[in-house]
């Protein structure tokens, strides 16, 4: 285990301009009874992945509120991470052959980490399956333990879930990103959304010149409609389905398609999917397939801001924060009704949901033909994110959980 040191400071008052001073004062009101009480977040990686991205922004905000919040990262060998990767996929419903050795590796690594940690913070938040067995180290000091699951557990592999269930059931609470992901557990289960930071590089306002230069760099025509899906090259994001939907739209309306995602160079499966996508695109000039660097927040921001419509045509999805990112930028979004997406897209209010390639194409055509409705969906989407999916709301939700757990004892 190692503690993650957060060096950047994010003055809370910078959010007041976006949210109003009352919202910031409310955070201070909620924080007051929690001051001096210890909070510990534990996950399995300090960089990369949505959890680390959120914690990197959450801790500085907690510090601004004078909360005593620490973040520890679990350490493990390659064997542990291979096992937990297999568990992760199996919990998402991928085939997995249960092997007793895998469970032993998992338990041994959790035990080693348990030995190094005090685990005595008043509020212990354990993120995802990797450190779930740390609950075995729970002290008899009456502290509160909650398990935050960021993955889709709606169709988990039975063997893996049965194994994890024994640990999760001993927490005081569990949090999921969608009601659909919750399980039959003897503990309270809460809805906790991931969040975006409106002041981060991925979401802050950009100069129009930067957006124009980004389009020029990728040879995208700013004068014609741009349909964009930002996602890694993964079959579950259905990039080939997006191209097929685009082709249906293109029969009726002139437009361009941008498929942009993190580089596939270190992901063998991603490289295969990228090749499939390129084959499907077949060199068509108006289909822009962009391999972005692993961390390219400003380019993502610029491509989203330049888009006429943002698409998220996933077949499975944890939460799909790219939807919130697009909504924050007031973009009309057409997305699949899977995972956490329907929480973000309230059909016909904050965006449009679709259930097929043809349905996706139909909704895109509708929005391209009705720009005033598209604009209204974008406005409402922005307000929806502001109310529910910003990092400040996430901190508020955590503080509410701590206060509720303390009250329950």
């Amino acid at each position, binding site marked *: 285990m190692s503690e993650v040191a957060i060096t950047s400071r994010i003055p809370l008052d910078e959010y007041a301009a976006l949210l*109003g*001073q*009352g*919202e910031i*004062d*409310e955070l201070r*009101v*909620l924080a007051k*009874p929690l001051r001096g009480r210890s909070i510990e977040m534990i996950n399995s990686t300090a960089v990369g992945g949505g959890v680390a991205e959120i914690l990197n922004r959450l801790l500085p905000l907690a510090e601004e509120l004078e909360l005593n919040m620490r973040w520890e990262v679990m350490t493990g060998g390659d064997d542990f991470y291979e096992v937990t990767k297999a568990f992760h996929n199996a919990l998402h419903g991928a085939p997995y052959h249960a092997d007793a050795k895998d469970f032993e590796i998992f338990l041994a690594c959790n035990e080693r980490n348990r030995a190094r940690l005090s685990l005595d913070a008043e509020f212990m938040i354990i993120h995802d399956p990797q450190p779930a067995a740390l609950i075995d180290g729970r002290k008899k000091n009456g502290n509160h333990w909650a398990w935050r699951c960021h993955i889709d557990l709606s169709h988990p592999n039975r063997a893996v879930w049965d194994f994890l269930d024994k640990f999760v059931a001993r927490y005081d609470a569990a949090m*999921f990103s969608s*009601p*659909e992901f*919750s399980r*039959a557990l003897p503990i*309270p*289960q*809460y*809805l906790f959304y991931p969040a975006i930071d409106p002041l981060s590089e991925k979401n802050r306002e950009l100069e129009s010149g930067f957006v124009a230069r980004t389009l020029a760099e990728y040879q995208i025509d700013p004068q014609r409609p741009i349909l964009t899906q930002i996602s890694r090259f993964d079959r579950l994001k259905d990039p080939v389905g997006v191209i097929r939907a685009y082709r249906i739209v293109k029969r009726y309306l002139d437009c361009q398609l941008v498929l942009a995602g993190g580089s596939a160079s270190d992901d063998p499966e991603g490289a295969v999917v990228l090749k499939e996508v390129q084959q499907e695109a077949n060199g068509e000039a108006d289909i822009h397939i962009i391999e972005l660097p692993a961390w390219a927040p400003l380019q993502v921001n610029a491509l989203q801001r330049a888009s006429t419509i943002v698409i998220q045509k996933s077949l499975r999805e944890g939460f799909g924060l790219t939807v919130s990112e697009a909504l924050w930028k007031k973009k009309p979004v057409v997305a699949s*009704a899977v995972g956490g997406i*329907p929480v973000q897209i*309230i*059909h*016909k*209010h*904050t965006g449009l*949901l679709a*259930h097929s390639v043809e349905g996706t194409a139909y909704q895109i055509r509708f929005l391209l033909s009705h720009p005033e409705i598209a604009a209204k969906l974008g406005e*409402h989407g922005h*307000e*929806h994110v502001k*109310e*529910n999916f910003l990092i400040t709301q996430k901190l*508020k*939700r955590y*503080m*509410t*959980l701590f*206060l*509720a757990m303390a*009250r329950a004892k």
Partner: protein
Amino acid sequence: MNIAETPFEFFTVSYLTRIGNQSAGTLKEFLTGLQQCSDASMFHHTFQTLSSHHFLTEGFSNDFAQWAHADANREDLAEQLAILDVRDYLSIAALRSDLCRVVGDYCAANPAFSEQTALERFYFCESEEVMLPFELTARSLEEFREGIAHLSHASFYFHFMSSRLRLQLQTNDFSHWLADGLGLGTLADSVNRIDIYTNTLDSARAKVLRLIDRERRKG
């Protein structure tokens, strides 16, 4: 200047959404859910949703109506559910009774529809409330105005909307104090008439402030 004997104390509220153990994939299951879900669940999908979706002022009334519209694809039922106004209810039991009547009647009249599978399931959730003083009080209309202008959305919602159930009166905390604390019955009535279904929390707040300013100009 009127000074109230008992000051108005501003509070704020924060909600956790607790995932319940009931869900519905058909109208028939939905009716069972409405009959059996907790009061906290009823509150969550009717009162609380107005706070978390306050920015939707056209065609969004409660989670039940939205599901009937977007997932069950029953526009006529959705309309009947959407027109139920939470301000008409002093108890969750009365609201539940009307919701069950509307859905029950619809299922009885349309038995084929009641068994059809919706696009997405409806998950019954509950609101778990944590309430704290906002550390603001008011004794005069001026201080009251200042307080309202400064509130968070959640705090404004708490006093303006969810207070109706707490008070068990067809009024809200603001109107109650304006009438009882400051003796401003007409202003209290005007504030109580602001339509939360066609206003966002921001526009409702702006209307409250305008009404207070008009009252202050009179004085």
